[in-house]
């Protein structure tokens, strides 16, 4: 990975060329937009024995999206896509809550753990099915995962009988709605999952293998990488992440809603991955970028609520911001609009292949 040929070396330049610069800049800008509308937006105070404030809410409500997006990142890195995550969220929540609601003592730890186990196993089975279809049967990922996306929500409703299952389980409430050490417990779950993912993909060769499969599955197979096995693994991992997100979402409201839990989360997750600078073509990925991307989307949602955008124009507003973010991410657009700076960069002889340079490179350097 060559650093751009810098003729006027400055810290600013290095900073703006960092692959996380634009996502972070957008996140900060969005946070600042809130200040005029909510003067104490950055204030965090104690309430009811835990920390409370807008930033805490953003992380709390954004946790499921971060999880789903992290799983999605790896799938996208192999050149695939997983549309079934929303349905997996619904299935996991439905199974877990219906098991807990059948318990005589909903607060019994053993029962809650078993319920969560059942939910997560179901999620992983969904992932295995997706991986099987994609890697073994050679079905296009978008079609293979569409099956569970459509059918899975029906399964979730079958499990819940079309009802919203309300539960009263204190231990279960902890995962998505509870607090530990004055912070939302979900932050710790997210931190653990992200840390494990980063460690596995950047401290071992696994990340390189995933990227190599995404770059060219056939070539990878020929050099001795079991590309099918890698693909099945990432789909299972993605489903597991979605499963944990499903536990969080159902725990957050203490209810399983087969119809609405995780609805459209797959699209938000893909968006988060893209905002984070991972190319949909596969071959390289950035977990850190994805986390920032997910936070951008959650902040955007919160911003819409707080600045009082009329409900009818919510989606237009969201779309406009997303377009701006994507344009800012595009070096070509920046070169055209920012003018001289960009031109100086394109004339630099360092990297001849312009399209390959289109997205920030991210290799095993982390």
């Amino acid at each position, binding site marked *: 990975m060559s650093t751009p040929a810098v003729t006027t070396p400055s810290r600013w330049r290095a900073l703006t060329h960092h692959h996380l610069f634009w996502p972070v800049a957008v996140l900060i800008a969005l946070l600042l937009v809130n200040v005029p*509308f*909510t003067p104490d*937006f950055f204030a965090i105070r104690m*309430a*009811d024995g*835990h920390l*409370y*404030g*807008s930033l805490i*809410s953003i992380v709390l*409500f954004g946790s499921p999206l971060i999880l789903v997006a992290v799983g999605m990142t790896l799938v996208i890195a192999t050149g695939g896509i997983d549309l079934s995550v929303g349905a997996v969220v619904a299935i996991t929540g439905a199974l877990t809550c219906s098991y807990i609601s059948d318990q005589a003592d909903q607060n019994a730890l053993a029962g809650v753990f078993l319920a969560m186990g059942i939910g997560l196993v179901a999620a992983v089975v969904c992932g295995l099915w997706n991986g099987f279809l994609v890697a073994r049967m050679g079905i296009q990922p978008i079609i293979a995962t569409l099956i569970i996306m459509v059918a899975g*929500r029906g399964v979730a*409703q079958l499990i819940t009988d*079309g*009802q*919203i299952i*309300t539960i009263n389980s204190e231990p279960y409430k902890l995962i998505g*709605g509870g607090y530990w050490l004055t912070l939302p417990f979900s932050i710790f779950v997210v931190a653990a999952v992200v840390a494990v993912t980063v460690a596995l993909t950047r401290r071992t060769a696994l990340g390189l293998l995933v990227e190599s499969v995404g770059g060219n599955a056939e070539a990878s197979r020929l050099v001795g990488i079991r590309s099918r096995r890698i693909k099945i693994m990432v789909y299972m991992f993605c489903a597991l992440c979605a499963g944990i997100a499903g536990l969080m*979402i159902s725990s*957050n*409201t*203490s*209810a399983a*809603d*087969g*119809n*609405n*839990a995780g609805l459209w989360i797959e699209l938000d997750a893909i968006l988060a991955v893209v905002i984070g600078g991972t190319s949909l073509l596969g071959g390289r990925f950035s977990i850190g970028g994805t986390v920032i991307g997910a936070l951008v989307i959650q902040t955007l*949602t*919160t911003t*819409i*609520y*707080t*600045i*009082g955008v009329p*409900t*009818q124009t*919510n989606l237009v507003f969201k779309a406009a911001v997303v377009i701006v973010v994507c344009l800012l991410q595009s070096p070509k657009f920046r070169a055209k609009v920012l003018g001289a700076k960009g031109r100086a960069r394109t004339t630099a002889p360092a990297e001849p292949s312009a399209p390959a340079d289109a997205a920030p490179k991210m290799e095993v350097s982390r």
Partner: protein
Amino acid sequence: MLNRRNFLTAAVGVAATAGLAACAKEDGSPTGSSSGGSKTITLGFSQVGSESGWRTANTDSVKSAAKEAGYKLQFSDAQQKQENQISAIRSFIAQKVDVIAFSPVVVTGWDAVLKEAQTAKIPVVLTDRSVESDESLFVALVGSDFTDEGRRAAKILEKVLEKAGHKGKVKIAQLEGTTGAAPAIERAKGFKEVMDAEHKDDWEIVASQTGDFTRAGGKQVMAAFLQSNPDIDVLFAHNDDMGLGAIQAIEAAGKKPGKDILIVTVDGVKDGFIAMSEGKINAIVECNPLLGPQLMEVVKTVHEGGTVERWIKTKESDFMQDQAKDALPTRKY
């Protein structure tokens, strides 16, 4: 121009109903003479989805009422998507059901498919929600008056404020239903009507956003509201589920729902009544989902070629906190 178009559609409507009546007579008499018993009526019913406990109760009511009346029910769940509902109605037309009933997901975009039903001479009955289409395209609406529910919510809020001893300005946060859905539009309209007429100076809606009729939506939106408007006095939620989500957000902010923030919701599902009996909701405006029996009566009359009222309103009442405990055991949904 407009008049002529209206006249034309009306004429088509009249012609269609006349044809329908003729049809009913035609196949009515031979069956009557041959076997004495009439042919079972097939009813095609397309439900919005199962987005809430209210909806589930509504579905159950339609299913059991159809069974009781001895009708054959073709049931289809649209999963809150208009395109699903339109294709369900098209398949009902292809199957030549006797009557089509449906709860429209949104208010607009139904003209084409309703005209197809009209051409096929199948009468259409709307349940629960109305549409913005030509009046001649459906025979009746069985459902609640959402605008009136909004008015009733405002009226009961007056009582709630009086009981809580609240004086002076009232800052109201509103959790709207799904954008574009009839109950969301009309409940907001009815509420605002009373507010503008009688409380122009003292009531103010300081924040209003959609919570999509779900608990998760209600919780997330309320959490944001509490940040941008920390001094909210009243929450008006367009359904119980959003109210239940908001209660959790209010508690997380260290406030007491039902005391620090007064809550009025619409619907009256069981979980809502449980929350009200715990003192977390102050008043509930009922929106009765058990309209199955009323619907079956309409279906029967329409099938026999009789005329029905355009709007058959469901029977509903309002509940204050002190009535919650008594009413709770009787709640079916």
